[in-house]
């Protein structure tokens, strides 16, 4: 049914034991994703974006603990699933592209072997059919003379080509969900645009859902259906891309959008918005709003329980003591 989400996450929490105690890296985040939809997660470095995606894929390191009141992927509970179940899901129905392609390409095997193995492992197909699909996908991701590339090793390819091979590998089994962690950050702007276009095209063709993690608000605006803004382990604002960009509400989201120069809008050389201060430590007990120390709208209540507020008929959600993310003139600043 179309109105049932493909992925539904409630209260995802990730704790990491560190020397000085427990790092509460992700604290109770909620989001969902429909078939074919694109969710972009943006946010400060260290806010927990990569951990979130690794938790969904079941790829967190052994010491790291995760829990959730709900983590449903098309009927499978991603937290309760056995290692065996997760191995079957990964590659077959969920795939991931990592920021650094060399972390997932094995330098000892040819591109062809790696692509073909990815498919043989999960689908009942012959070697010849797998090889054909590998060639077809390499061509799709814009790699010329694809058949001859199958015999090459990862180190023989440029960064941009390797990233394309990674994308082809993730798509070998036609996954229902693709998680891409900063897939284009290391690339030139021209190649970035080409790869994003390609991802969007392939996604449409396969009706694949996508979670894309990035720092780049330009990328988010151009490809997201939904946006989740992450700060210090919480999703401080989530909503449709158009609303987030046209009416950003949480003080962090507004701050973020003010920081970037927008060609044609920001006057050349004018002062850019800033968010002074630094991210708080998440080791030990974390209370109140984690953004309050950097927030111009902070009031004493920000140290307490922070309510979830919904706007635009529930489509947009913010975590803030203020109804509209702004302190009333009558309120005392913190």
């Amino acid at each position: 049914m179309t109105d049932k989400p493909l992925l539904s996450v409630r209260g995802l929490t990730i704790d990491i034991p560190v020397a000085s105690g427990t790092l509460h890296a992700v604290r109770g985040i909620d989001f969902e994703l429909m078939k074919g939809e694109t969710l972009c997660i943006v946010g400060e470095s260290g806010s927990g974006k990569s951990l979130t995606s690794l938790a969904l894929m079941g790829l967190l390191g052994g010491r790291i603990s995760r829990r959730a009141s709900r983590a449903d992927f098309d009927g499978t509970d991603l937290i309760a699933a056995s290692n065996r179940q997760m191995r079957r899901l990964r590659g077959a129905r969920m795939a991931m592209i990592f920021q650094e392609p060399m972390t997932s390409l094995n330098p000892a095997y040819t591109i062809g072997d790696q692509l073909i193995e990815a498919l043989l492992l999960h689908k009942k197909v012959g070697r010849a059919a797998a090889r054909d699909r590998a060639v077809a996908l390499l061509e799709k991701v814009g790699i010329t003379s694809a058949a001859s590339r199958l015999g090459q090793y990862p180190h023989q390819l440029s960064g941009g080509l390797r990233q394309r091979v990674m994308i082809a590998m993730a798509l070998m089994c036609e996954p229902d969900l693709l998680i891409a962690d900063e897939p284009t950050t290391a690339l030139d702007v021209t190649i970035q645009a080409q790869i994003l276009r390609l991802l969007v095209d392939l996604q449409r063709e396969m009706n694949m859902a996508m979670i894309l993690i990035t720092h780049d608000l330009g990328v988010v605006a151009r490809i997201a259906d939904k946006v989740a803004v992450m700060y210090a382990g919480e999703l401080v604002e989530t909503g449709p891309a158009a609303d987030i960009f046209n009416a950003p509400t949480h003080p962090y989201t507004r701050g973020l959008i003010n920081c970037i120069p927008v060609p044609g809008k920001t006057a050349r050389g004018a002062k850019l918005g800033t968010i002074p201060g630094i991210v708080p430590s998440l080791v030990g007990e974390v209370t109140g709003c984690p953004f309050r120390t950097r927030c111009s709208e902070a009031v004493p209540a920000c140290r307490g329980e922070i309510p979830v507020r919904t706007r635009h008929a529930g489509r947009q959600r913010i975590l803030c003591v203020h109804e509209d993310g702004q302190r009333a003139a009558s309120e005392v600043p913190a």
Partner: protein
Amino acid sequence: MSDAPVLELRNVTKTYTVKQGMFGEPKPLTAINDVSLKLGRGEVLGLVGESGCGKSTLAKVLLGLEAPSSGEVLVDGERLDGQDRRKLARRIQPIFQDPYSSLNPRKSIADIVSLPLRVHKVGDAASRDRAVREILDIVGLPARVMNTYPSQMSGGQRQRVAIARALIMKPEIVICDEPTSALDVSVQSQILNLLGDLRQEFGLTYLFISHNLAVVEHLATRVAVMYLGRIVEEASVGELFDTPRHPYSVALLSSVLTPEPGRGVPDTQLGAVFPNPIDPPSGCHFHPRCARAMPHCAQVAPRPLPTPEGHVECHLYDDSRGRAVA
């Protein structure tokens, strides 16, 4: 003499020798190919172009870290190779991309920032201490960070330390190679504002290398577009961003993703295959990827043609369209 460029490159070429594969013959790789460039006092020259086109090599030549294979570098009209490296370091300082690896983790912030003063034997301990406090204040760091270490600082704070270290010798020219690429946007904006303020206050001149064209448009006064070792277009920031001439400049600008929802990802009309710098394409190096290439573009290398505020190297703007030269 205020019109004389503070920094000038005259026909600078930098060739490296590289081996392809384990048993390959050593071959020349021209990282910078006959580049001429002038930087006026107080200007911010944005340098953009694909990965591997030679931007960092150009920066290293300007800093005197690499000697050009031919051509000359002039600072205030004086040839660079005649000056000693130390004297040069007082006038030109770098700020690099990675604030994590460029600071020695075992040295305190005070030691890191005062190092150039000690190397150049400037002042005594007390005056150096004063200078460190002053420069930290200018870059927006509290004096108490003097006794802390890089590991205790955020990315933005570390980049401020790197800027303080670059500025403590009061250089005239600062070469910034991707100074904000490793930083969060919330930190990037602080550093960009700071660079803008310092320019106003001290009349600094910047060479600013970045992949982020929105940032270049924001900060630069002039822009040079590089492709495979050559500056294929140079213009004022307004001219370049409003009316780009070279097809590569056009492709570059069209791939900028502005934060405007619903507009989708543009088609750059650019092939993805970056040419091999050891064996560059004949004629115009850009012709295999150019949407507007003409037959003779594969045969004849274009020459720099003057434009109202700079130059462009492209047969489209050549009256003879390259044929006469062929």
